[in-house]
């Protein structure tokens, strides 16, 4: 597993640390899924989940945005599930992440 990833948010780095601790293999943003095309068939929208856990065959998408702003992301995930029903993806919302950080004693250490 390469450890030179540049995470786009501190919460992703925390997630990677937790996965490393529990020896769960992960890949960071390995796949971009086209989810919308124009009339000519050109891809106009894609979705790249944050993590892929190959041993679990599961994608994880973290979102630290406020709940009001996740509608767009929810729509993308819903679209991905429609187009790729065999893909297993789980969203962790801001509250889920905070709960995880509290569980692992990280809430006061890591900024969300």
């Amino acid at each position, binding site marked *: 597993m390469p450890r030179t990833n540049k995470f786009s948010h501190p919460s992703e780095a925390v997630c990677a640390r937790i996965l490393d*601790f*529990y020896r769960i293999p992960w890949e960071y943003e390995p796949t971009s899924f086209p989810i919308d095309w124009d009339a000519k068939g050109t891809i106009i929208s894609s979705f790249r989940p944050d993590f892929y856990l190959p041993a679990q065959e599961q994608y994880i998408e973290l979102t630290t945005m406020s709940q009001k702003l996740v509608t767009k992301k929810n729509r993308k995930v819903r679209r991905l599930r429609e187009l790729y029903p065999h893909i297993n993806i789980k969203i962790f919302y801001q509250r*889920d992440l905070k709960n*995880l950080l*509290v*569980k692992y*004693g990280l809430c006061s250490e890591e900024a969300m």
Partner: protein
Amino acid sequence: MLDETLFSEDDIGQALTRLSGQLTTDYAGCAPVLVTVLRGGFMFLADLMRAVRLPLSVDFLAVSAYGPHAGDLGTVQVLKDLQELIAGRDVIVVEDIIDTGLTLNYLLELLRAGRPNSLSVCTLLDRSVRRIAQIDIEYTGFAIPDVFVVGYGLDYQQRFRELPYIAKVKIESSS
């Protein structure tokens, strides 16, 4: 901090009756070993093993927990290993709660390496909304939503384990 009761003593008793009945039926003719992970699962294990009508044995595991200084620790480690060999045995992992599944995923890999005849999971609480590692759970007491719970062996900062019921707890996070 302590909030409403989620599962009363009666609720827990009914779950114990149901789970122990299932185990007694499914493992009829066997002498399984119940393995629990310290420290949260001890109370559930104690009550479950008294309700199961089978000859059985118990064993315990303890692992290092992730925390603020986990970066220094590296990766999860076994702090206390099994005292019995499990090769050829029917092993039932007894958990108080499964949420991310990360610790249990690691432990199941470890236990599989011991070449048991069979390996299954029995948990009192299943908080699947937080699941990261996909795990097959054969026996579940209650499915719960994404709430913090304490009591019946479950703690928050080592408090509330002694409660005979399970209650929600309000956590004031600092971020």
